[in-house]
């Protein structure tokens, strides 16, 4: 009989992130399909009552918590101690957690500590005949595997955005607090802050409907034999402002800076999509001045509708990677798109 523990942490404001509700949804579905299983929730944070209350109508029968100022920090040493304590209190066999940066940092280490196993980037969890299987991607989203394990505890890190959120409303959760002893050794690291671009300069928007990808073509010589970087910068930033899209980039474009060439200053490796970049989830994606080669397009695995603008009708996008390829000059197209979006904004 499996005991399923959903492990969540609070956000800075004490709430639960959407990804935690997704993990809870996956765990609740698993619980439903495993006869005799138990569903338990564990929450870690400085104050956790309101977070637990927000999901009190979930099918979970018990809530455990670890609280205190030290757990406001996203820090390996203290998070590992807290997760381990909750696991032991819950006597869990399966641990389902959102693969946030905080849990992704620590939960594989916790699996090691507990003598269990961890699988990350899980996109599906199912059970049949009492046997649990998970699906995840290999070789940077190039192939999908379904696997099962005999070892317990088994920690599953659910990829944010891969599940629907649980439809469990608020109530009053009775939380059993689990005491933990922190040694000085677990406080050698201190989180001193968050570094982020100013609000109006933030180009990475995980919740955006549209991913807008820029390729190295924006920095290359155009038909007049000249580069047009200031114009490219204006067109891209105008589009982002008007469309509220999230900005992605090909590796070649963000690498240009390191090679001493002129660059688009608002791009960094954080924007990079593909083999050595991110694999974001958006409903739509528009690629511009990018050839759509495999190492880049593996990062588009979870983009729903895909369109591309490229001067080359034989580029990678034409080979079944985009739904629509516009063979055209992105400078001209995006200028017109911005005009239309500006016009629409006035009406």
């Amino acid at each position: 009989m499996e005991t399923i523990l959903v492990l969540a942490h609070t956000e800075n404001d004490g709430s639960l992130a959407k990804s935690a509700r997704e993990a809870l949804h996956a765990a609740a579905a698993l619980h439903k399909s495993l006869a005799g299983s138990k569903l338990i929730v564990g929450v870690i944070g400085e104050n956790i009552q309101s977070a637990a209350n927000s999901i009190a109508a979930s099918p979970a029968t018990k809530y455990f918590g670890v609280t205190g100022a030290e757990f406001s920090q996203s820090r390996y040493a203290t998070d590992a101690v807290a997760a381990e304590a909750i696991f032991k209190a819950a006597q869990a066999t399966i641990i389902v957690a959102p693969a946030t940066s905080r849990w992704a940092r620590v939960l594989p280490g916790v699996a090691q500590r507990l003598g269990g196993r961890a699988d990350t980037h899980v996109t599906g969890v199912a059970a049949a005949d009492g046997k649990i299987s998970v699906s995840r991607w290999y070789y940077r989203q190039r192939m999908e595997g379904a696997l099962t394990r005999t070892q317990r505890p088994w920690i599953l890190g659910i990829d944010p955005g891969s599940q629907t959120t649980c439809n469990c409303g608020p109530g009053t959760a009775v939380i059993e607090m689990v005491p933990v002893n922190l040694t000085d050794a677990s406080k050698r690291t201190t989180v001193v802050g968050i570094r982020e671009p100013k609000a109006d300069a933030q180009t990475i928007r995980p919740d955006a409907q549209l991913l807008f990808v820029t390729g190295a073509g924006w920095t290359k010589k155009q038909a007049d034999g000249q580069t047009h970087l200031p114009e490219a910068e204006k067109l891209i930033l105008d589009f982002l402002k008007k469309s509220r899209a999230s900005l992605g980039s090909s590796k070649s474009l963000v690498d240009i800076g390191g090679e001493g060439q002129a660059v688009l200053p608002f791009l960094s490796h954080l924007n990079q999509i593909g083999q050595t970049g991110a694999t974001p989830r958006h409903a739509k994606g528009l690629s511009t001045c990018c050839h759509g080669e495999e190492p880049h397009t593996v990062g588009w695995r979870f983009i729903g509708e895909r369109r591309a603008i490229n001067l080359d009708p034989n580029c990678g996008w034409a080979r079944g990677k985009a739904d629509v390829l516009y063979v055209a000059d992105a400078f001209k197209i995006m200028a017109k798109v911005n005009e239309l979006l500006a016009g629409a904004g006035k009406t």
Partner: protein
Amino acid sequence: MSTAYQIVVCGSIVPDPLQTLEPVASPTGPALKNEMMLPAVLDPWAGHALYEAANLAKNQPGSKVWLVSLGPKAKLQQVMMTVAQKVPFELVALDGSASGFTDATETAAALADAIAAIPGLDKSKLLVFGGWESASRGAGATMQMVGERLGIVDQFQGVDQLTVNADGSLEILERIEGGKHQVSKCASAPALLGWATGNLPEPKNNPQVGMVNMRTVMPALQKAKPTKLAGEGLSFASVALPKQLRETQIVKDKSPDDIAKDIVEWIKK
């Protein structure tokens, strides 16, 4: 205050990203078609970790870099011919599978044992580096398990920057959600850092560095310990390529006005 670090980088090999990959069933579980024939490269994020390690060692006199690599010996040798020309390091080779279908726990055990066996290892100076995810298994789990096995609880993942402060403390930038970095301060080594891209370009090949490295690379490969990753308790029901091919509509003869209108309508839909 300058600290001489012992920097151990964990990094293996992966198929060249430009290659077409196809899964096949093998007696030991899933594998890649013609796996041993595929050209291989150093795992990209592990590569960034190696370049950051070399840069740190250059700036912290007395520091030394090891590269601990688990992969088929013959393929490791091929890749090391190039990698050894990039930056100075001493190779510790383990002869085993570099497949993405191996188990992170078993890989971590092999790597941790190899690190612990490095002669003269001083944990108070130890920094364990690696990629935060491989381009094969992509688990983002192996490094944490290596750290646990070595008793290192100051761990950081998705690292883009490491600064050694004047007092010997380490300031680390880790990627978090929404294009942000978390800034942490760690009192001192030992620490484990799973690198993302970092800030350094790939170093150019330097034959002189290659000559020096090869003095230790070849003997390390010759004495590479056979490492069996059994995949105990793990079984795959399926591994398949996605049905990804789309019917691409190629629009060639429309005016910029019409294309722009089409795109705006699509965005708003």
